């Protein structure tokens, strides 16, 4: 008997929660709910659980159905802050890159009569200057794109004919990730 009464009372409370969450409460019901939540910690915890679940399920369904919804105000603020920080970080990266960029022949002007050689003027924090990197000659006019690909069960190689007959550059290719990149100067 007591259990029945308790179940009925519980159902009445859940009904009140449900009406509130659905915006169907009268002013009197809202007042009753607020009083209950203030005085009954267990009811408050249960209401919060229902409310949070309702929001989460609603959001999941809207996402699944491709319904966009306006982001809450706090989230918008966070987004704005994040995009502001991102812009500032991007600007700092660009400034750092320009500052650290090794001066090339086109963008480095030696003062006349300073006596500074071109080799001495080339400096970089990333790559030490050296003949291997800097003195690559132009590709021969008859240069052709490599067509030969050697394949076995584990590795790929690209075999690139060198300018001199009988010499090849062999590049081992990782089969898992192969990238195609633009090369501005032929090796």
């Amino acid at each position, binding site marked *: 008997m007591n259990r029945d009464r308790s179940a009925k009372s519980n*159902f009445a409370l*859940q*009904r009140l*929660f*449900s*009406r509130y*969450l*659905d*915006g*169907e409460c009268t002013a009197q019901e809202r007042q009753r709910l607020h009083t209950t939540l203030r005085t009954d910690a267990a009811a408050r915890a249960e209401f919060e*659980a*229902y409310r*949070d*679940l*309702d*929001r*989460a*399920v*609603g959001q*999941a*369904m*809207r*996402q*699944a*159905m491709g*319904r966009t919804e306006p982001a809450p105000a706090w989230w918008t603020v966070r987004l704005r802050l994040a995009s502001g920080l991102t812009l500032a970080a991007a600007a700092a990266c660009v400034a750092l890159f320009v500052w650290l960029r090794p001066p090339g022949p086109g963008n480095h002007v030696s003062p006349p009569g300073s006596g500074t050689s071109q080799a001495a003027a080339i400096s970089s924090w990333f790559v030490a200057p050296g003949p291997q990197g800097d003195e690559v000659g132009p590709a021969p006019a008859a240069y052709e794109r490599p067509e030969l690909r050697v394949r076995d069960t584990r590795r790929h190689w690209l075999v690139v004919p060198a300018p001199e007959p009988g010499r090849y550059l062999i590049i081992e290719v990782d089969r898992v990730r192969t990238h195609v990149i633009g090369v501005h100067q032929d090796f």
Partner: protein
Amino acid sequence: MTTVTLDGESLRQLVTEAQRGDRAAADELVREHDAWVRSVIYGVTGRAALVDDIAQQVWTRAWERLPTLEDPRRLRAWLYTIARHTAIDMGMAQRRQQTTTATFDEEAAAPVPARRDEHSPVRAAVEREVQETLLRAVQSLPAIYREPFVLRHLEDWSYAQIGAVLDLPVDTVETRLVRARRLLREMLQGKVEP
């Protein structure tokens, strides 16, 4: 949220024009009613992945049967009937094709770790898993509870509006929503962190 903006007279006029074969009027009807029709389909099937195909079928059938609609003011109820029957037919056909059952998967709804790093792939994976768990719980609700629950959340309809479309008394709508929430809570308790 769906806003059905047409008043009675505009709706009657639009339906009449569509019945005469005016494609522009038919397009306007689809634009006005497509969102809630989709919610009905989702409410019936519980599977968002089926909604596009079924909605297409619903509008094809509606277009074919439009001349039989005698009272344009009953368009909503008429569309609801078509959407519900089509969703049941196609949902069941789809279910027959599947080998897996659509019951709530206890294993898949295992507790989700509480630790979340923002913007990390781990966090994204956790969020995806939580969303899937929530959707599975919705899917495993009995359809009589799921339908009003989905219309309430996706369309933001009042109890009276839901009752009018589902042809149910307001009290019944309310009771079904309470039971839907209670069932969801029982299914998800301790399994997801809101």
